[in-house]
């Protein structure tokens, strides 16, 4: 029998039992839809987070205390401002080094109050980690040296505290101390993951240390001259921090962080896909079940076809194609529905969703594979039927 003919017979059989085919296919549709949608969300999260890290600027070295392990909370910091100076001298350009101390605190202005991420930073911060100001200017090196109480507000903080007026020159209160607003950061857009970068407030690191009653530095940032110099500059930073043990600090490159975070999110995506795959498996069992019913219902037809000259493989092919038509059409419908839903989610939910080629190929390939896998047993049973017995079947 020709393949086209077998396909025609399979299609006819599916169309003849429209409702049953539709219900059976529903299991596959839901399975494929779930795979496509969850993979899209997982990929969306991955792109957003790695994008946020890339947004910090390229060729960035991040120096943090402790032996960094992504499964543990950050340890207490032992860095001091003197270490920042050492690093600046070691790489020969203090302008490419910045430091921060971070805390969460309420910022008040008049009657309004906003909880913000408070960053005490050095004046080199905007160049090193790529932040732009919308209005005003960042504090100078003398502000940092004298621990002057000046602040640069994140876009959202400025909008909430000063909805009607220009915040420049106004006063905000942080931890009972008054700070003068000298600048407003340009908005970078809300992020679903991690603290909102528009909800930050930047103050001189020295002022922040005084406010927090500490001398610690939480992290240092070094902008390498180029990608090629990263290993060399990392080594200089390491030497500059020789007063610490090897495991008391870590130097991370932006690429390393993106790699690790990306791997974790990729794994998460695969786990999501695997969980969704279970429903596809259940759908496949449904197809197997309905194919057994179909074979049993059409035993006489099988007997007749064999009497008229159908070989075992003709019958097997016919029923296998019937199963593949069921799961394949379910895969196509599920794919279309999954892409549609992913677009809806992307447009209306605070979750990004990205359709990737591999998830489309996977969904279609797996749905056809499910048809073959779960169809082959009923189809072989049909092919092996004894025509004598099958013809007499009532």
């Amino acid at each position, binding site marked *: *029998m*020709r393949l086209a*003919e077998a396909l025609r017979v399979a299609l*006819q059989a599916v169309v*003849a039992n429209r409702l049953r085919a539709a219900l059976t296919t529903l299991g596959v549709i839901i399975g494929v839809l779930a795979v496509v949608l969850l993979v899209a969300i997982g990929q969306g999260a991955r792109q957003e987070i790695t994008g946020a890290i890339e947004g910090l600027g390229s060729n960035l070295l991040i120096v943090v205390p402790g032996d960094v392990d992504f499964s543990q909370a950050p340890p207490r910091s032992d860095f001091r401002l003197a270490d920042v100076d050492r690093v600046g001298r070691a790489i020969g350009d203090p302008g490419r080094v910045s430091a921060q101390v971070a805390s969460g605190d309420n910022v008040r202005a008049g009657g309004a109050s906003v909880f913000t991420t408070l960053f005490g930073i050095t004046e080199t911060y905007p160049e090193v980690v790529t932040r732009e100001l919308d209005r005003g200017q960042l504090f100078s090196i003398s502000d940092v040296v004298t621990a002057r109480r000046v602040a640069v507000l994140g876009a959202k903080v400025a909008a909430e505290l000063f909805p009607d007026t220009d915040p420049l020159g106004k006063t905000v209160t942080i931890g009972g101390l008054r700070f003068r607003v000298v600048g407003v950061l340009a908005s970078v857009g809300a992020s679903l993951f991690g603290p909102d970068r528009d909800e930050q407030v930047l103050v001189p690191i020295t002022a922040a240390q005084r406010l927090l009653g500490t001398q610690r530095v939480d992290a240092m940032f070094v902008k390498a001259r180029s990608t090629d110099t990263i290993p060399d500059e990392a080594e200089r930073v390491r030497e500059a921090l020789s007063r610490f043990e090897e495991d008391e600090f870590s130097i991370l490159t932006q690429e390393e962080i993106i790699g690790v975070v990306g791997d974790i999110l990729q794994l998460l995506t695969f786990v999501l896909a695997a969980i969704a795959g279970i429903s596809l498996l259940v759908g496949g069992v449904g197809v197997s079940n309905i194919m057994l019913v179909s074979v049993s219902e059409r035993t*006489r*037809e099988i007997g*007749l*076809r*064999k*009497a*008229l*000259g*159908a*070989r*075992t*493989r*003709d019958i097997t092919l016919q029923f296998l194609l019937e199963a593949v038509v069921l799961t394949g059409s379910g895969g196509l419908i599920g794919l279309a529905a999954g892409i549609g839903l992913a677009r809806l989610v992307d447009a209306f939910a605070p979750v990004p969703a990205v359709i990737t080629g591999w998830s489309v190929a996977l969904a279609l390939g797996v749905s056809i594979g499910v048809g073959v896998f779960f169809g082959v047993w009923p189809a072989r049973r049909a092919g092996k039927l004894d*025509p*004598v017995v099958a*013809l007499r079947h009532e």
Partner: protein
Amino acid sequence: MTPVHDDVTPPVPAVRPPIIEARDVHKRYGGGLAPDVHALRGVTFSVDHGEHLAIVGPSGSGKSTLLNLLGALDRPTEGVVRFEGEDVRSLDGDQLAELRNRRIGFVFQSFQLLPRTTALDNVALPLVYRSLGRRERTARARQALEAVGLADRLDHRPTELSGGQQQRVAIARALVTEPDVLLADEPTGNLDTVTGSEVMGLLERLNRERQVALLVITHDEEVASRARRRIELRDGRIVTDQPVGAP
């Protein structure tokens, strides 16, 4: 005028082996814990080209078992069944399927037409397994339906046809492969007397005109009496095998 012989060698009359030859055929069913059923106990006979032969016998006499063997649907437990000299024991399942497709046309008591399928497609069905193109299948099926007088019913489905018409579609389907033998199993069993007689008339005409052997299995003596040869089975053995009308 002297006749001119172009042929150097005179035509040798081909001695064609019988279409079907059964020699000392036994068939047993069951085994294991159940007692064996010895359905056929040494049946020997043959069917020649163009013959019209009836096999009769009460139920349980082994008619159906014999039909399965003559239709190459099954193999004997002992003995030999040959189709044009070819022993079925040497053929595997797929080769038997091809043999059925090429040499045998089945006509069943219950017609065995595919539902929701037009007469034309029902008749073309055996040709699907010859990998013929759709155009040729349709052309041949149309011819076969014309031969059984159903040229105006090509696109009707079985439910839209009378019993006699359905059986004629089934006969067209048996005919479309140009087989050597038509195996008719109680072809009039589901039809009234008049329609049954018409269907038998059609089968006999095809037998005469196309030299296709006609083997009818029946317990209807009237149907059997229309054949030229009659074999009677009883308890898995042939009890009589003689021309009809012989003393």
